[in-house]
């Protein structure tokens, strides 16, 4: 009788431990996403200054600037889903990259101290965002492993946890580094 009680207690303790480890892994994924979110906000904060400093030089690129402002406004709207945030981030990356290419045509701007500082700040935050994405992927890997490995997979099935998607470079981002097709066209 006592033996059975002990056995049940041990199983219960094990279940609690496994359950808790799963919850903590799930929360780490959420936390990692929040880490990306903070940095995206940091980048959005830089944008008004950037626009202000390039506006007077780049008379012919008003379209690009308006687009960046418009994307930023959307990013600041409340109640966005994670997917929407990722989508807006991708658009922003594309637009900013377009701006930086356009800057090449304005030697005066490239020599502007204020602009150079902003560009460095932007580079810094981009690098941090990339680090945050890699961190997110690392937590997702751990979470997904737990969801598919014995014995945590059984508990995960009971809790109806689903595997999460990795942050991957979008088609657009991949296209940018595809030098070969650039030569062919």
């Amino acid at each position: 009788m006592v033996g059975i009680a002990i056995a049940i207690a041990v199983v219960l303790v094990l279940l609690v431990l496994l359950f808790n480890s799963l919850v903590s892994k799930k929360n780490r994924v959420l936390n990692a996403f929040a880490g990306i979110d903070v940095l995206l906000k940091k980048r959005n904060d830089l944008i008004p200054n950037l626009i202000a400093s390039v506006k007077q030089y780049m008379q012919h690129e008003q379209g690009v600037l308006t687009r960046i402002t418009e994307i930023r406004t959307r990013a600041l709207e409340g109640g966005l889903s994670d997917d929407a945030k990722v989508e807006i981030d991708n658009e922003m990356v594309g637009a900013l990259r377009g701006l930086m290419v356009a800057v090449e045509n304005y030697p005066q701007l490239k020599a502007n101290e204020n602009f150079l500082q902003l560009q460095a700040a932007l580079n810094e935050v981009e690098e941090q965002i990339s680090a945050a994405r890699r961190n997110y992927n690392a937590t997702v890997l751990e979470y997904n492993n737990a969801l598919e490995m014995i014995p945590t997979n059984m508990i995960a099935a009971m809790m109806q946890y689903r595997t999460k998607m990795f942050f991957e470079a979008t088609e657009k981002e991949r296209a940018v580094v595809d030098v070969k097709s650039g030569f062919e066209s």
Partner: protein
Amino acid sequence: MKTSEDFAHYYETDIKPDLMLLEEKRLHIKKKLMPLIFLCAALLIVSLGLVAYFHISIQWMMIPLLICAVVIGGWYMTFYRQFLSQFKEQVIQKIVRFVDPGLTYAQTGCVPKSLFTESRLFQDRADRYEGDDLVSGTIGKTEIQFSEINAKHVETTGREQGTGSQKKRKTETYPIFKGLFFVADFNKDFSHTTIVLPDKAEKLFGRIGQKLQGLNRSKGELIQLEDPEFEKLFVVYGEDQIAARYVLSTSLMQRIADFRKRVGQDLFLSFVASKLFVAIPYAKALFEPSLFKTLVDIENIKAYFQDLQLAVGIVEDLNLNTRIWKKEPPKEEAK
């Protein structure tokens, strides 16, 4: 970066004349040492013979041993030290300037202890700290300094022995680090510490080793990075998961792994307060020629050049001159 061919040319034109003079000096002091060694050997053999013949306590051997130590020590202080200092002043100084004119060399200087402690690479307190051969300066946009360092930890163990004024605690000295210690101003700004150590556990125990590494929290959280080659060579601890990845970009991980393979030795790296620290253990003393080998041999001298190139090359190997992430250019150190 200067090549071996450049060095060979420089060796012929600039270093060799100095070496010829130093070589004479080397032969001269070696000639002085030889009779001393024979004298000491003879003294020891005769004393040993006397001890055996007259059945005197072996403790009396201390006296001839002490005499020998004084004689050889005297030779070292008067001749060899001066020779070494002259060699470093003339030859190493020239090689340092050849490697990069932006560098200066100080034979008695070393990386300050405060920086060694700041690196947080070694947990034991450095109670004895010494070093020499300090090279410092700016390579491109990066300020660097490195020197040979020998750090030891002294531990007082056991109970007090003896009584009254004779009370004494037993102390033991443990080596912490001996080798080349390198500090550079890093090309990104950060405030969180990240430490990269040679991976022992994972190599031996695989996944279980990785779990064990996670339990060792004294250096911070375990950071698991996505580059399998890098992960096999190193274990990374940090105060912040994102900050560690910000510092260790995918390309930097590749560069560190490549550098590790080139050095062919364990590497200890840390990133603290926008600075990079690299410690490379060395068994031999840096920049010290053997008394029993000829100086006028390019292969011997080239080894010093290569040691220097390796350290200075960290800047290029780890791409530290790319400074697109810093808001301000590196500040000049207040002097």
